[in-house]
């Protein structure tokens, strides 16, 4: 499959068929991502990592993906955007960068920055997180994790747990899952419920959607339990935060009543939402999820930059 020259700013920039094809291509990249023989689809290509905000796993997995495919990286990993740009606009910075590289991966604190970068650049731009906005490759690797375990993205019961209000990964995942026909079960504290706008949009698209604030009950029926970080800053006081975090903790006793095939996912890094004892159970899928970032990003980079008509 080829997506030559396209910008990937939002998961909505990809059709359902394109997502399916990317996931299939990512499956073929798994061996190469583990260090096996890789196609040199990015040989001679340079990919710029423009990270204006700290990120470890997103940047490193992109860099790994580029290098596995024989390409090389130009990396701006300086979190202090000002020292790098010296007051230069993002538009000018990207314009300049697009003349040094064949594609740009952007992480930036302002919403909409990737859309602006896509206009500034005549090379493909991949959004690797714009503030509270979009992060399409995270959604792709979430889907890849579910697909790898179940062989399908439809007919599953997926519980989204925790901060459904601010968690950007959860919004685009919910939209994609709805598109593929899985049932979405929302489980969150009242103050962190999915915003009405997203709920309406999902229902409008015919999503199977319901709420189950009772966590043990939600876990019993789930095929996938997607856990998000609950951020302290979102709460007015420490006490309320502790109470919520306490009631959404995933541990072995809670999972004892789960289906054997249940997988627990988390975008990482975790901060106590999932007890370490879960790591040793067959339910733990979050480290696999982190690994799949590499083959998924390899598949996307190949589709954007690889030779046209190849790499299918």
């Amino acid at each position, binding site marked *: 499959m080829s997506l030559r020259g396209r910008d990937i700013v*939002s998961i909505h920039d990809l059709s359902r068929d394109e997502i399916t094809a990317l996931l299939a291509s990512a499956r073929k990249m798994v061996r190469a991502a583990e260090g096996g023989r890789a196609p040199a689809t990015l040989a001679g290509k340079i990919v710029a990592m423009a990270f204006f905000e700290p990120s470890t796993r997103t940047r490193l997995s992109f860099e790994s993906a580029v290098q596995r495919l024989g390409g090389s990286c130009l990396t701006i990993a300086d979190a202090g955007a000002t020292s790098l740009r010296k007051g230069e*606009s*993002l*538009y*000018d910075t990207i314009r300049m960068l697009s003349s040094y590289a064949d594609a740009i991966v952007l992480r*930036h*604190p*302002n*919403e*909409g*920055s990737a*859309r*602006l970068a896509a*206009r500034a650049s005549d090379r493909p731009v991949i959004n690797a997180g*714009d*503030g*509270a*906005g979009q992060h399409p490759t995270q959604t792709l690797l979430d889907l890849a994790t579910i697909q790898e375990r179940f062989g399908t993205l439809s007919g599953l019961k997926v519980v989204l747990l925790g901060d459904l209000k601010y968690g950007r990964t959860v919004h685009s995942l919910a939209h994609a899952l709805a598109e593929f026909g899985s049932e979405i079960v929302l489980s969150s504290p009242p103050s962190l419920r999915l915003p009405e*706008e997203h709920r309406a949009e999902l229902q409008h698209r015919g999503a199977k959607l319901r709420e189950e604030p009772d966590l043990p009950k939600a876990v019993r029926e789930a095929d996938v339990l997607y856990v998000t970080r609950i951020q302290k800053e979102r709460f007015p006081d420490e006490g309320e935060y502790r109470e919520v975090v306490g009631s959404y903790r995933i541990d072995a006793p809670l999972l004892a009543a789960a289906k054997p095939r249940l997988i627990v996912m988390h975008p990482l890094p975790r901060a106590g939402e999932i007890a370490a004892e879960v790591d040793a159970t067959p339910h733990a899928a979050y480290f696999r999820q982190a690994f799949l970032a590499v083959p998924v990003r390899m598949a996307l980079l190949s589709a954007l930059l690889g030779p046209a008509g190849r790499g299918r």
Partner: protein
Amino acid sequence: MRELKITPIRNGTVIDHIGNGLALDVLKILGVRELDRDSTVSVALHVRSGKLGWKDIVKVEGVELSPRAVNAIALIAPTATISIIRDYRVREKRAVDLPARIVGVLRCPNPNCISNQPEPLESEFEVAARRPTVLVCAFCERRVTDFVRHLA
């Protein structure tokens, strides 16, 4: 010519069929971007109208509105008609028309949007729905329905 609620103007623009009570918002749009100091502006509030029941009218002497001002008026007063007066006669008359993209007229309500940073690009919104109008920021996808508060 039918009865004129306000003194005739020689050259200028008449914005008629403004929804009842919206004339002050129209003035706000004109005030922030268009008027040169020599223009006389007359406003008629709560005028009988066949179509609308009641309407407001704004007349601006000596000024022909720019397309951008017309777009802004279309946002808050979609029923308005704009007549260009030259030498006391109506020379052009048209309904305002909301374009598919609104460029530069509004500020994005999301303070963290890149369009509110010092970048060499104008704000931009796409029309997501009509009647009532809903706009979506072309950068951060934030929805806007309260246009008067977010005039650039």
